[in-house]
């Protein structure tokens, strides 16, 4: 665990206590069984916002506490532990980052305090297929009277049904595969010509398919500079990747703790199965991987606070190492629990399903490994 300030320790402890009381794993199960499109009860997110969690990285002038990314990462890790669903990672961390960094005064005025208050949810509408690939953006934005007209589609937008506004990656020039010519737009969810429908994945969380049928927005909807959106988009996505990595770290830690507990209590052949060396060494391996993942995730969160030059490399490292770790532990969690781990009543399946969803979200482990290698010159 990183060396924390007293305030950070208090925030983490508060999150730990709240999650256990208000958002245990059962809350996700309940949301799933109720047919919720969000994966969480709206009161729970309102509760988080009331505690200030939605505004941790937002300036005080816009209703936030400007307490930093490592601080918000601590909350995300705790939420990950119980699979507590919320738009905090996407909206309150990544989208908020984009607005703070690139937004005009008017855009900040409109959106930041609403995000900090939990009244607005901003989602990142980037991918157009099942695999993350921002440079392949094809959704078209054409100049129209007084602004732009957007046509195309977006796929698997995380928190897309909860969103009240999207940061949309669109192509104003060039072709899919070109970095130049990508622009970012702020598009309200109720814009005319924009339709959305839910996509139900195994993790019971919120994903939306969006269709843009000549959606018209004003010139003031451009976030940053038209045609030069790729660099800020990648930077924003890196923040999203690190946010997700913090959630993954929490998930992996909890999945490991639960499994370790089972190794200590399940008795076969007259002794706890955790006394078998074949299982002990696999547990030691998981522990080692978790320690390495923690180092990478905490360093990446701190890198956002420091506005580090190598943020992209740190994000790729954190996402890939946390991804490998979570993949291993989620598989071992089911295997080591045996038959009970295959039942829906046990939590192992929920961790397994969410694990694969976050592993692919904002770039898979293999994708980030290759990306990291390219950045290092390999």
């Amino acid at each position, binding site marked *: 665990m990183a060396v924390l300030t007293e305030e950070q320790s208090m925030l983490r402890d508060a999150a730990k206590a709240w999650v256990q009381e208000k958002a245990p794993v059962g809350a996700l199960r309940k949301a799933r069984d109720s047919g919720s499109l969000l994966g969480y009860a709206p009161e729970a997110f309102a509760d988080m916002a009331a505690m200030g969690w939605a505004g941790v990285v937002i300036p005080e002038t816009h209703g936030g506490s400007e307490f930093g990314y490592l601080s918000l990462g601590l909350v995300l890790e705790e939420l990950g532990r119980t699979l507590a669903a919320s738009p905090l990672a996407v909206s309150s961390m990544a989208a908020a980052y984009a607005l703070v960094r690139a937004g005009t005064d008017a855009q900040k005025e409109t959106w930041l305090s609403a995000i900090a208050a939990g009244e607005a949810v901003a989602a990142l509408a980037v991918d157009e297929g099942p695999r993350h690939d921002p440079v392949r953006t094809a959704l078209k934005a054409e100049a129209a009277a007084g602004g732009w007209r957007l046509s195309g589609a977006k796929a698997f937008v995380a928190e897309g049904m909860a969103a009240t506004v999207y940061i949309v990656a669109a192509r104003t020039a060039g072709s899919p595969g070109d970095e130049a010519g990508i622009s970012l737009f702020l598009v309200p969810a109720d814009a005319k010509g924009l339709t959305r429908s839910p996509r139900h994945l195994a993790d019971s969380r919120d994903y939306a398919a969006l269709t843009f049928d000549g959606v018209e927005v004003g010139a003031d909807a451009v976030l940053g500079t038209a045609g030069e959106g790729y660099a800020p988009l990648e930077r924003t996505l890196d923040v999203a990747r690190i946010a997700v990595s913090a959630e993954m770290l929490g998930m992996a830690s909890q999945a490991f703790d639960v499994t370790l507990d089972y190794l200590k209590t399940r008795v076969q052949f007259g002794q*706890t199965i955790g006394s078998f*060396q074949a299982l002990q*060494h696999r547990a030691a391996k998981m522990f080692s991987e978790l*320690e390495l993942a923690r180092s990478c995730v*905490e360093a990446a969160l701190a890198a956002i606070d420091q506005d580090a030059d190598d943020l992209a490399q740190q994000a790729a490292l954190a996402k890939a190492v946390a991804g490998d770790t979570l993949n291993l532990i989620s598989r071992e969690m089911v295997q080591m629990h045996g038959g009970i781990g295959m039942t829906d009543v046990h939590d192992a399946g929920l961790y397994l399903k969410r694990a694969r969803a976050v592993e692919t979200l904002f770039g898979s482990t293999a994708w980030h490994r290759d990306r990291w290698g390219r950045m290092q010159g*390999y």
Partner: protein
Amino acid sequence: MADFGSTDAEAFRAEARDWLAANFPTSLVGVEVAMINATGPVEGDALLWKQRVGEKGWGTPTWPKEYGGGGLTPAQARILQQEMNRIGARNPIGGMGIMMFGPTLLEYGSEAQKQRHIPPICRGEIRWCQGYSEPGAGSDLAALQTRAEDMGDHFLVNGQKVWTSGAQYADWCFCLVRTDFTTKHEGISFVLFDMKTPGVEVRPIQLISGNSPFCETFLTDVKVPKENLVGPLNGGWTIGKRLLQHERNSLSGGGGSAGRFASGTSLDKLAKTYVGVDETGRIADPDLRSRIIRHQMEAKAFMLTLMRAQAEAKGGGGPSNATSIMKNVGSKVGQDRAELAVEIMGAQGLGWEGEGFTDKELEQTRNWLGGKATTIYGGSAEIQNNIIAKRILGLLDHQ
């Protein structure tokens, strides 16, 4: 005393700087002064530097002054290290006496033992070796059978030790012996003897790398005076284990091995030289490339974990859980790197001797082989996993 902490620190920095300026021979900038010199004793400037540091006690900066140490606080020792790094000065006092035996004797030795053995360690005069493993006692160290019989004023020691690092150059040995055969862990004692004692015979073992850093040590009717028993009779296991903790700490090194990964020639450059590049300038073999990347990421994660553990230790949270994984992860990263280098270089990476190979290529072959020891010595990778499972994770022994 610490009221004027920062002033004290600056005063000490000035003192250290002055002393180093006056005493460090500039011919030794960046030069390691070996404790064990295969070609003979150190001489010239190296000897001078060693003597000066030894006399000052700064080779063992935090050890008590009364036994020849520097008597510095940890903060002062850090400043001294910084000042030495600044001018490229290396600590000429090293070896097992410093890393393992000294700290253990300071904790468990009698006053007379400390007075006798610690000062020569501080001066770098006496080289120690470790009589632990035996042919039948490797990972199961407590199975050791070397017998020490009570002969009144001395013990008579008979048996065989193995993997005794540097025994052929060592002056003294700290040794685990069996003084009670009716019980296992509680029948072991910790004794010291002079390697020149009659009955001590050393034979170097040639390893797969061609080097002989380890020896077999045969002990035949070796007389060990009673005064050389450390701690109570049959109380040697506790002391022996404590020493192993010091060994592991030095092996996983708050810098040593990790620093090498960071500073070594990058595998990228090596691969582009020996394998070549594709039309986009990337390593031509995509499977090899992806495995190199995977390895480099693990090395980076290991470095970040070393840094985190250091920050956490300084932050006062006590020793971090992360330290327990360092030996296994560090040794794996090192071995993976060597295996990748061999694969990248093809036949050129397997050069054994003679023409057709650069010195670097030949060294790489030997390092690849020599590095296989890192997951075996100091508690094998499997023993480390047992330790993590039992001590950190709280899993029970199999019944």
